[in-house]
């Protein structure tokens, strides 16, 4: 075969990234020169691939999961109940946490060439059966924590099932970890709502990727299966139609806006981080459905690169819109269908990007974007 392969087919990006981030200066330069020098690339690729794969194995681990049981207490992490490679247990929450963190690892690793939460093989720890009657799941900065919902109440009063039941909830929590290592979005007001939205976006993508659903087939719900039959609702949030996930006498109505004109100013919930996330969530949904196919491929790639390389701790919605618009140009070209879709998605939630003139050509296109993706070139901004 003499087909000219795109650069990322010759040396896997995770390998390049590994060299670029963990190699000596000489190795970094070699990695960068290898990518740059397309004429020399063919000759060097085998040697480069061999040394870098070896370095990769030594430097970092792969998928490593540990599940703990808090036994309804509040101390973390609890007792180890299942480790990587061990057979399923009789406890469904343990197995869901194990499988779900594995599917999340797979999306990041297989699609975005990211080795775990920190990009460096960090072990994925999860604790299940946290406290009694705990209607929640959270990321504590180091691990995931899941409650069992209303297991302590009579069945007729239960509103929530166990939080491991929804794969997107697991992907959501792990993505908080990714954000913590990358954009470090402050958990308050608009940066906090972006932090939440990133978790919903990649949580949903974990589920879509696992089920191999296209954007058109996906339900775009967050927490589907989490609410019991006592609740009038289908999930906790809807990216497709924010504000419609539930409307119930006890829980109230889903308060999420889908447009800037309905932005909720509140002191609660760190300034409404779980409420206003509906706006960027919906923008992502529109972009993904506009582009069609698997949402993790194009829309997801734009979002991932933006989260990894462009967003800052204090970024607001407008910044995120501008940066995803820029990333779309870097990855797919100025004025590409992808960039147009990004513009349209944000416009529909009330955020204008790009104006009427195309942004300046940043040059480099795919090659430069790949270099940035692997960390071998400075981030834009």
């Amino acid at each position, binding site marked *: 075969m003499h087909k000219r392969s795109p650069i990322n087919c010759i040396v896997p990006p995770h390998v390049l990234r590994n060299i670029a981030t963990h190699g000596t200066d000489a190795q970094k330069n070699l990695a960068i020169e290898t990518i740059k020098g397309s004429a020399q690339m063919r000759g060097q690729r085998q040697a480069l691939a061999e040394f870098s794969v070896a370095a990769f194995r030594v430097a970092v681990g792969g998928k490593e999961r540990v599940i703990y049981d808090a036994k309804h*207490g*509040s101390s973390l992490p609890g007792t180890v109940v299942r480790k990587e490679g061990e057979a399923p247990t009789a406890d469904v929450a343990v197995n869901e946490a194990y499988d779900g963190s594995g599917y999340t690892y797979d999306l990041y690793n297989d699609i975005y060439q990211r080795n775990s939460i920190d990009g460096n093989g960090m072990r994925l720890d999860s604790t299940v059966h946290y406290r009694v*009657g705990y209607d929640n799941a959270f990321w*504590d900065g180091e691990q995931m924590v899941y409650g069992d919902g209303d297991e302590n109440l009579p069945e007729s009063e239960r509103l929530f099932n166990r939080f491991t039941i929804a794969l997107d909830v697991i992907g959501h929590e792990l993505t908080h970890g990714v954000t913590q290592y990358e954009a470090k979005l402050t958990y308050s007001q608009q940066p906090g709502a972006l932090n939440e939205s990133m978790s919903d976006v990649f949580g949903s993508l974990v589920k879509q990727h696992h089920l191999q659903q296209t954007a058109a087939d996906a339900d775009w719900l967050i927490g589907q299966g989490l609410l019991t039959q006592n609740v009038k609702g289908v999930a906790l949030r809807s990216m497709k139609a924010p504000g419609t996930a539930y409307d119930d006498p006890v829980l109230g109505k889903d308060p999420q806006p889908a447009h800037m004109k309905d932005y909720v100013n509140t002191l609660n919930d760190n300034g409404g981080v779980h409420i206003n996330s509906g706006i960027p969530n919906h923008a992502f949904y529109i972009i993904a459905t506009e582009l069609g196919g698997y949402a993790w491929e194009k829309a997801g790639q734009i979002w991932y690169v933006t989260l990894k390389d462009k967003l800052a701790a204090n970024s607001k919605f407008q910044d995120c819109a501008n940066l995803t618009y820029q990333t779309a140009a870097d990855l797919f070209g100025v004025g590409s269908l992808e960039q147009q879709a990004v513009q349209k998605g944000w416009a529909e939630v009330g955020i204008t990007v790009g104006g009427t003139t195309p942004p300046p050509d940043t040059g480099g296109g795919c090659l430069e974007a790949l270099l940035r993706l692997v960390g071998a070139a400075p981030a834009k901004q």
Partner: protein
Amino acid sequence: MQIERIKFERTGGFAGIRIATDLKLDDLPDEQAHTISELLDDLDFGELPEQMMNDANMPDQFTYTITVETKKWEHTVITGDVSAPEKMQELLQLLNRLARTQKKQ
């Protein structure tokens, strides 16, 4: 210490659903009022620091705001899940349930 009133609010969490209740202990069944008073005494509630949230970097945690009134003082404590002492778990659980029941009515 004679507790007269307790206000409770839970915000945030994965679902972002706020629940709250405002209870006059005289209006509660004796046994429940007694339990709440005991749990608060046991915690030495009036002496707890006002701000117990020391874990800003824990997305999706609940935030609990509890205000207790006696004849002599009023005291508010704000805490998260991980920063709440083990001794407070039973109180939080009870108040959660009361807040939810009240919302239903």
